[in-house]
């Protein structure tokens, strides 16, 4: 590993910009992501910064069973995120549809049909600490040595 790569890894490990997109959840996972911002979990001590701008994000948190309104749009949001990027499915809904995947509903899970998902955090809803550890594990597995892996 070159020196440049090591510098890149070091910088990236302390600067993760997170964007979240709600594709039809019950809000339960949303507020658990918001709770991550609370001083108790102190997300910024890990260098994670949550805002809602896909164009400067590294990690996309996907929440909710996939509703039909998002059909073309989620792909567009995903394309706007610059490389290196990773998507994390938060909660049961994006993984399997959860309670909403029944006959007669308007959802189309799983989300991995539409965009590539790097990590999944099951739970209805998962705890903020679990969301936090998922983001941190993405940092070590996807972003570390990204240029090397590309070759």
């Amino acid at each position, binding site marked *: 590993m070159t020196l440049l790569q090591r510098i890149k890894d070091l910088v990236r490990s302390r600067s993760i910009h997170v964007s979240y997109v709600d594709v039809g*959840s*019950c*809000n*339960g996972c949303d507020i658990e992501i918001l709770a991550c911002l*609370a*001083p108790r979990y102190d997300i910024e001590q890990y260098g994670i910064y949550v805002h809602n701008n896909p164009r400067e994000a590294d990690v996309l948190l996907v929440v909710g069973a996939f*509703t039909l309104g998002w059909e073309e749009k989620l792909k567009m949001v995903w394309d706007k995120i610059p490389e290196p990027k990773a998507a994390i499915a938060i909660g049961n809904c994006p993984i399997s549809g959860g309670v909403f995947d029944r006959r*007669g*509903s308007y959802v189309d899970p799983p989300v991995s049909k539409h965009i590539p998902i790097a990590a999944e955090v099951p739970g209805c809803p998962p705890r903020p600490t679990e969301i936090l550890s998922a983001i941190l594990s993405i940092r070590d597995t996807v972003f570390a040595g990204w240029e090397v892996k590309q070759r």
Partner: protein
Amino acid sequence: MKRTVDVNIPLGPIHPCFKEPARLKCETRGERVIGAEVELGYMKKGIERIMKGRPWQEVMFLAERVCGICSVIHNMVFIEAIEKISGIEVPPRAALLRVIANELDRMQSHMLANFSYCYTIEHETLAMYLLDIREQVMDELERLTGARVTCAYIVPGGVRCDIRNEDRDTLSASLDRIEHDLHRYAKMFETGPMIALRSKGIGILTEESALQAHVVGPTARASGIAVDMRTNHPTYRKLNFAPVVRHGCDNYARVMVRFDELSASIGLIRQSLRALSPGVIRGGGICKAGTLRYSGEAPRGELTYSITTDEYGRVAEIQIQTPSIMNIEACCHYMIIGVDSIADVTSAFVSADPCIACTER
């Protein structure tokens, strides 16, 4: 609506200020907003369609997942409607425990709403303070019910688990702590000069238009309408509940109503803890057939379930009317019309505490 306009500014579906996807198309002339159209459909899951034909044991969990922020009240209204249809009595201790769980849920929801508002007007300090005490409320909710968000605490005929004596003491101790902090933060909001500049006189919702759009909850109470479904609830009546009303009609009044209601909720929990007498927490009964329209007061306002059940306790027909439907409608068609700049649209929208997951179900 097909209309030709000068300039239209779409906000959303992904926007830093909105927690959930909604698309506001604001028609503007200069900086002034003259009209707005809302585009939903990003959260339509069809929960009511899934609920049809399922037994109450399943619908109970689905009802909770209509909205994650106010899950306890959805659970409570659905279960109380089933109880009313079947004539099931609730033991007094369980009724008080329901009030405690519901008020804790209301507290965390109001704190989240005020957090969102402070975050939107870029007063991040106060926002983080509020989010910090919200975690303490979430702890109490978890200690009481066993889960942070979707707790399924209320079941027909009572509640799922009892409160232990030592938990009671912890709860009242932490309520004291929360009230002390809350008082400080409410004062910060009330007297903050920059907050007042950013909130007073913005997003006016007059009483007349509030009545026309059938606005409910804190949004209505900030416009001087004393409507609160808790005044009709038997347990709350025993606790001598009175709604909080303000006449400001603006963003500031809406947020202050929520601060006042937080103190009122703390009072209600204390009263219920005092009134808690030993006894059973689960009654019994059989779910029967019937039709009922039943309302309860969610953190955002009046929540109505129209339910028809059959003799096996299955839900034959259901319609949920959530408070956010009315509030967002009033917000987009009355509140943000005529605000001075497009920057005030987001703060006016967030001050009504919109919940898109509720609205679309």
